[in-house]
């Protein structure tokens, strides 16, 4: 076709322009630097044509068409700001403002007030008349300014709507709302969470969920996308309300889960005041989950951040200088034999921190006792999980898949960016099947929801494996159909769907990871993927699990993921590091090393020990907050959070991404690698004179493929390619079955996964407490009714040797007789599920 079909010639404000055919007048104007005021239009959303602020004059068209909805046509003659248009706009704007608090817009003293508040009478002298948190960054103010509106000729009508503050993270003052509908379109078109809608009509029109439900009740994910697009102060972030404008921004990688979203940190002075999604098509494509959007600032800004090193003596905290702290650490470490030293590090740390940590253990201490907290989280399934990571496909494959199978996945709060991709896939015609004993946000959008009892999970997946095996498929199907009726039917349907699907993807969540048979479940997923040529994508909860493996932060693994029993590799490493490094005894289980016996020195980096007797004579606690129970740490060292340090991190898909320093750490806090290096140097060890992260990165690149370009790391997704294996203890089945007493309930225990450096986010982020369950137990409505329990009641679960009180939550769609407990740290997980009795706590 000729070039003419793709572009059209128009005249705008007397300029002749050649523009793309499919554009609207508004887009054509923006491309050519012509300003047209808008309120309801937004580049990410479909045009709505509601505010009429963008009206223009088009020759030959009657009235004033709206630029945001009218497409350009060949030969169009457009005028964007004739006197008539401007008058009309002013008229419309006045109508909008007649229902809007307008003191910040048309007060006669506005400008003087900014400077010295000369006329303040009834407002606070410090704040002036600040009715709206958006002051100074409001699109309405911009438009008023542009049109030079000085007064409103209409009677002002105040809607007297109650300000809605009951939900976490953002407040809603619909008295400021101009009904532009951006929030609704964002929630429906992009997030597809469908929480918001216009309700009622005419003057009564308001925005919100059904009835008078709170957003929490209505299924909101608290992604904050609606808040970001609101042109007024109607929707405002609680924590950032009065912070004003950011002075600068820094793009970094969110370290709150393994998705590894790109976030834009908003910075004012030396404070991160907010976080917004970066427009980065590779991972999160302009979206974030509640953690990345709202939790970051509160997490790093809490006043209880550690600022100075201190030691504890007889229960008293004694502030010391860094000099003294390093000296003390060095002294204790030099007295400590290799096999009685232990170093535990958080998988939230950057690669550079992890690399230095394992080098510290191996070179400085000559010890193999290096581990991360991921080992506890994944338990016996750890190696099986890594095996799935060896097969992982990029998240972008969801856009090619005709079928997506989600196993144990919940995307309402954590990982909601994945939920957005799932809904997008459904919009494209893909089918989603979810396998989950629990009812969650995916069951509503899924084509099929298989709800096995938790202990049937393995069986169900194994049946799917059998059904999808190429040979004997038919006979298996009919055999099982005869036996199990409905479920078997469903299973063979799912198997068939999987067989016929084109490039299916299996997403692996973490709801079953703490169960006894998690290795079997993970293995079955692997087999199923092989049978059906599906891609697998495990979505780890830890931001740098992948990196911790590649850096060799485990006794069994060396940097590059080589096995540490591999003598050749170990020798090679010894030579390069010019130090004797220990090999890992081939028959030992790594778990016994750290958790089993009493150590002389235990070094915790971003790890919070569970509440019990310390494991060591001397504990070094290096973190961003103090440990919950004093007395667990003998030496406390203040560390930097991810917003305060440079480095790289590898997300679940295997992308190496930059973590960038946005602000200085508080007080005297230092990045982990720097503290480690200082201690190593104090002990006279060579190979720790890194001056910056770049140098560490360079050294890593000698051992690990893909590293090297620190400024622009390789952000290509890649499955985990390592030779080494983790050695985990497989627990035998629960042992003797207690058949004498039939337990009334089976309780499934899981550990919280919203953890940063050992701390559940709920410790430091107020709003998170409402969203994330902790120390709770979920009960089915039927069981709750029988026992007279309602949500929020304290209940006691017990069985023979233990007893624990938890808060009950009633969850619809849950099987009877099943309890799901979420604990902060997974005590008495064995055997999981656990038979229990439950009663309401007497008051």
């Amino acid at each position, binding site marked *: 076709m000729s070039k003419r079909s793709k572009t059209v010639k128009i005249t705008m404000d007397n300029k002749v322009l050649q523009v793309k055919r499919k554009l609207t007048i508004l887009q054509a104007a923006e491309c050519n630097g012509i300003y047209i005021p808008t309120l309801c239009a937004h580049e990410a959303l479909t045009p709505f044509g509601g505010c009429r602020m963008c009206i223009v004059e088009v020759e030959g068209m009657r009235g004033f068409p709206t630029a945001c909805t009218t497409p350009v046509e060949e030969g169009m003659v457009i005028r964007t700001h004739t006197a008539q248009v401007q008058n009309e706009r002013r008229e419309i704007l006045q109508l909008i403002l007649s229902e809007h608090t307008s003191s910040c817009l048309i007060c006669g003293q506005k400008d003087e007030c900014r400077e010295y508040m000369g006329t303040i009478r009834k407002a606070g002298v410090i704040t002036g008349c600040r009715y709206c948190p958006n002051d100074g960054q409001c699109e309405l103010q911009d438009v008023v300014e542009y049109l030079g509106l000085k007064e409103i000729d209409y009677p002002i009508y105040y809607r007297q709507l109650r300000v809605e503050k009951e939900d976490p993270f953002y407040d809603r003052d619909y008295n400021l709302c101009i009904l532009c509908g951006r929030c609704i379109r964002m929630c*429906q078109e992009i997030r597809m*969470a*469908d*929480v*918001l*809608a*216009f*309700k*009622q*009509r005419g003057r009564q029109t308001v925005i*919100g*969920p*059904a*009835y008078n*439900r709170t957003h929490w009740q*209505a*299924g909101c994910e608290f992604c904050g996308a609606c808040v970001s697009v609101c042109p007024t102060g109607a929707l405002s972030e609680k924590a950032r309300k009065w912070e004003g404008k950011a002075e600068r921004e820094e793009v970094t990688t969110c370290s709150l889960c393994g998705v590894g979203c790109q976030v834009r940190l908003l910075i004012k002075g030396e404070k991160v005041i907010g976080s917004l999604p970066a427009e980065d098509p590779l991972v999160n494509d302009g979206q974030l989950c509640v953690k990345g959007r709202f939790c970051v600032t509160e997490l790093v800004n809490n006043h209880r951040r550690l600022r100075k090193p201190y030691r504890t003596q007889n229960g008293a905290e004694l502030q010391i200088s860094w000099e003294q702290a390093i000296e003390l650490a060095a002294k204790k470490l030099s007295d400590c034999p290799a096999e009685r030293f232990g170093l535990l590090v958080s998988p939230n740390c950057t690669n550079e921190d992890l690399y230095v940590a394992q080098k510290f253990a191996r070179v400085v201490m000559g010890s193999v006792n290096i581990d991360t907290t991921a080992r506890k989280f994944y338990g016996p399934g750890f190696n099986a999980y890594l095996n799935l990571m060896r097969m992982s496909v990029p998240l972008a494959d969801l856009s090619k898949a005709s079928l997506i199978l989600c196993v144990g996945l919940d995307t309402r709060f954590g990982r909601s960016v994945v939920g957005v991709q799932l809904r997008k896939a459904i919009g494209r015609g893909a089918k989603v099947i979810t396998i989950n004993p629990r009812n969650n946000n995916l069951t*509503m*959008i899924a084509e099929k929801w298989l709800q096995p009892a938790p202990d049937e999970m393995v069986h169900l997946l194994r049946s799917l494996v059998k059904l999808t095996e190429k040979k004997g498929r038919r006979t298996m199907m009919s055999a099982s159909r005869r036996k199990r009726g409905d479920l078997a039917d469903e299973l063979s349907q799912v198997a068939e769907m999987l067989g016929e699907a084109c490039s299916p993807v299996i997403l692996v969540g973490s709801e079953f990871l703490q169960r006894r048979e998690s290795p079997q479940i993970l293995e079955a997923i692997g087999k199923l993927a092989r049978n059906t040529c599906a891609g697998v994508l495990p979505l780890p909860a830890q931001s740098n699990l992948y990196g911790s493996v590649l850096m060799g932060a485990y006794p069994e693994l060396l940097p590059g993921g080589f096995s540490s029993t591999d003598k050749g590799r170990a020798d090679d490493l010894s030579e390069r590091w010019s130090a004797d490094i220990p090999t890992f005894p081939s028959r030992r289980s790594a778990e016994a090393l750290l958790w089993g016996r009493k150590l002389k020195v235990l070094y915790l980096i971003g790890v919070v020990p569970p509440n019990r007797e310390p494991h060591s004579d001397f504990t070094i606690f290096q973190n961003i907050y103090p440990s919950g129970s004093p007395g667990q740490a003998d030496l406390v060292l203040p560390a930097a959070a991810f917003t305060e340090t440079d480095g790289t991190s590898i997300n679940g898909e295997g992308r190496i991404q930059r973590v960038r320093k946005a602000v200085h750490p508080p007080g005297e806090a230092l990045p982990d690698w720097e503290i480690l290096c200082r201690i190593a140097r104090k002990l006279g060890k060579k190979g720790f004179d890194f001056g910056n992260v770049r140098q560490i990165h360079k050294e890593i690149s000698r051992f690990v493929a893909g590293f090297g370009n620190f400024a622009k790391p390789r952000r290509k997704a890649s499955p985990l390619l390592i030779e080494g294996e983790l050695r985990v203890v497989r627990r035998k089945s629960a042992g003797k079955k207690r058949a004498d007493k039939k337990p009334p309930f089976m309780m499934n225990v899981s550990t919280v996964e919203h953890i940063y450096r050992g701390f559940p986010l709920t410790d430091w982020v107020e709003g998170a407490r409402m969203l994330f369950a902790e120390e709770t137990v979920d009960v089915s409505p039927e069981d709750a009714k029988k026992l007279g329990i309602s949500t929020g009641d304290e209940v006691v679960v017990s069985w023979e040797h233990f007893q624990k009180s938890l808060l009950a939550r009633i969850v619809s769609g849950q099987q009877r007789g099943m309890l799901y407990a979420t604990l902060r740290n997974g005590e008495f997980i064995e055997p999981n599920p656990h038979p229990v009795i439950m009663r309401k706590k007497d008051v």
Partner: protein
Amino acid sequence: MIDREWGDIFSGFAGEQGDLIPILQRVQEKAGYITKGAIEAISQFLKISENQIFGVASFYSQFRFTEPGRNSIKVCMGTACHVRGGQILGDVLERELAISAGQTTEDKRFDLQRVACLGCCALAPVIQINDDIYSRMTVIRLKEVLEKYE
């Protein structure tokens, strides 16, 4: 998962988004108003969120969300009635019955709605109770009119 109760309400519908209004009409016809349970069931049937269904339904004044009272009062808010004090009648009724428009009194005796023009503007202001039209209504007469209904 859809309750049997709603089964016949959905019969004849393919489960497409366009079915929403006719389904809502059927629910209202059968139950007298749009119940919470109905919205939940429709949401599962049509795979539209409850929030959106409520948004659509509340746009049309024909749908109500509270159980109707034994008598239903409609206050006209049309132009003619407005000019002649329909608003005041509405306010007084809300205060008298201690409910706001769209709600039903606790004893289920009355429900109250504000409606657009009832079509007898010459008689403004107008209220309608069940099928009776009361024209040239005044605040003073309201009380005695209400007493006629049990």
